[in-house]
């Protein structure tokens, strides 16, 4: 019975169907299945499959994002149950994401957030136009491992450096690692501002984040 259900769970992630993911998650609770089993033996199998297909060049980014969204929908139902049981999913790490102050461009950052949470990170996305104190404040509040900052403009990317300098001043690094991204961000800039990680796209960002928390792929 549950084998069948696990397969359906994996499938709805592969299909990127958040509605069915929600339904199946609720059903698993009614059937008194253990939420951790539901996640690892059911939904995560689908995420891994899509990730694998993507790696082979047979799946595309929209499928990856939809799988991520469906996974998020399932977890949203299961997480409260886990908490009731006094358990928690093992997370890769905690990440605070934001587009820096003065900048309203967010698609890249949002994409990074989706990919990170699909890969097992706990992500708090603060949105756009976020000043340094808000970003750092949130990172401290949730005890984040990583701060990820995006900027699309050469005039706003300087804010990335301000956040890093502030973190250094407060002695919060290397405890909190910093990742940066955005169209004008170059390797030179990353070196200059002494960020810990940088990626040109969302898939690469996951790899960097895993490295930063010391959980590299085998």
């Amino acid at each position, binding site marked *: 019975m549950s084998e069948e259900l696990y397969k359906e769970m994996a499938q709805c992630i592969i299909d990127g169907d958040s509605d069915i993911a929600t339904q199946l998650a609720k059903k698993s609770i009614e059937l008194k299945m253990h939420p951790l089993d539901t996640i690892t033996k059911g939904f995560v199998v689908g995420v891994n499959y899509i990730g694998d297909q993507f790696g082979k060049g047979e799946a595309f980014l929209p499928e990856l994002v939809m799988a991520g969204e469906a996974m998020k929908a399932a977890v949203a139902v299961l997480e409260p149950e886990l908490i009731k049981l006094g358990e928690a999913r093992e997370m890769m790490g905690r990440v605070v994401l934001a587009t820096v102050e003065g900048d*309203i461009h967010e698609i890249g950052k949002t994409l990074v957030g989706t990919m990170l949470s699909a890969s097992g990170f706990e992500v708090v996305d603060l949105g756009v136009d976020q000043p340094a104190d808000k970003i750092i404040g949130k990172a401290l509040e949730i005890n984040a491992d990583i701060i990820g900052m995006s900027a699309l403009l050469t*005039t706003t990317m300087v804010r990335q450096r301000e956040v890093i300098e502030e973190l250094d001043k407060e002695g919060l690094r290397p405890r909190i690692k910093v990742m940066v991204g955005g169209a004008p961000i170059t390797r030179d800039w990353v070196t200059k501002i002494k960020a810990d990680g940088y990626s040109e796209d969302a898939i690469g960002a996951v790899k960097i984040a895993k490295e930063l928390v010391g959980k590299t792929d085998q």
Partner: protein
Amino acid sequence: MSSKNIKTISNPKLKLEVLTQDDLKKIHEATLQIIEKVGVRFPSKRVLEIWEANGADVNYEKKIVRVKPRIIEDALKKAPPAYKLAARDPQQDLQLDGNHVHLGTDGCGVEVIDIDTGEKRTSCLQDVRDIARVADATEEVAFHWVPVSAQDRPAEARGLHEIKAVWENSTKHVQSESIYNVDEAKAAIEMAALIAGGKDKLRERPVLSLMQCTAPPLGHDGGSLDAALLAAEVGIPTGFMTMAACATTGPTTMAGNLAVGNAEVIAGTALLQLAYPGAPVFYAAAQTASDLRTGAYTGGGPEDFLFGAATNVLADFYNIPLSMGAFATGAKEPNWQAGLEGAMSSFMASVVMSDMLLGCGFLHGSRIWSYAEMLMDCEIFSIVHKMMAGIEVNDETLAMDVIAAVGPGGHFLAQKHTRNHMRELFMPKFMDRRPYSEWETKKDDARDWALAKARKTLKEHQPDPLDEKTGKEMERIIKSVEK
């Protein structure tokens, strides 16, 4: 009308129908429906108030405006269909009248392939100066887009340093996409007024034009909107550019992507007309498809080329000039891909007579400036220019007398007719038509020649300088903005 030392496409002989009248009507109606039902985000208090005063449904909390089609359509009718972009040298003014395609440099890059070392590095103010000087010397570049970001200057006044640097190194029109807040816009207007001969002369002689990027899907940037209003008020031509990208910031399907981008642009344009009726405005676009593996902005590819042609149909429908993104390429160095994408995109945008063509010189999705790429792009523009002139058919060009004189089996090389017309044949600067053996010894190609040409230009070309007093005054204005 032609401008001094500038090669511009006009009186085109080629035509292309990329959208039917019915297609156009559907996209227009979809656009109006989007603006009325879905709405467009305008994150500026001043702008929201203008919309409300003009009868739009304004949600102040979400900063989303929904507007009845009639308001949009009536406002758009107030936009002037033709005007000119003035240059520091009035003989280099450019007509935006639907019968000219003017090439500009591309803009907003962040790195430069250094002209001496060949190494890629962060862009700085000196690059803005050098590129402007090389562009000034070419006949293909009709106007400047501020090409790269002066990252060695303070962020709050960077856009001002950039336009000053271009004016100091060229007599041609300057367009900036990097002035997007009230303080910088005010200062830029003051600086332009120095060249035009007063703020009240800017409408007559707009030596500066401003481009503001939209924030797709269906959004604008607050600072950009406020800056655009200031420009529109004094008659500085202003355009909103959409870069809605299929599958990420716009629908995957091209028609839907056109409608989303169109909604952003015409809602912004209508706003300027509501605030300042008759203000010179233009449509701007550089839509593309996203890369399906990374989500990245591609720049180039068949969707780009089609957007390049289709957008001018929209701009013509609204009867305003268009500035169209062309020459975009994802190529990392000047190569097959760069040539292909530059040629296809510039041809498609030109064949429909986009008024402004942006822009030559970039690699890697408009991020890395290359002088070689710039001059090879210019050659592509020259080829398109030649093609657009089409084939002239009359007694002289049919050459019946000469054909009879040469007869079967002769040759045309010694004919006066040949000498009279030979310079009409295209003479490439950078195409390799040499004997194979010559190439074999030298193994050089277009990239080497283009780079050599750029180096020579930088060494030799000195445009008419900006007078010292104006320069000093500009410096003072810039200082007042720097923190």
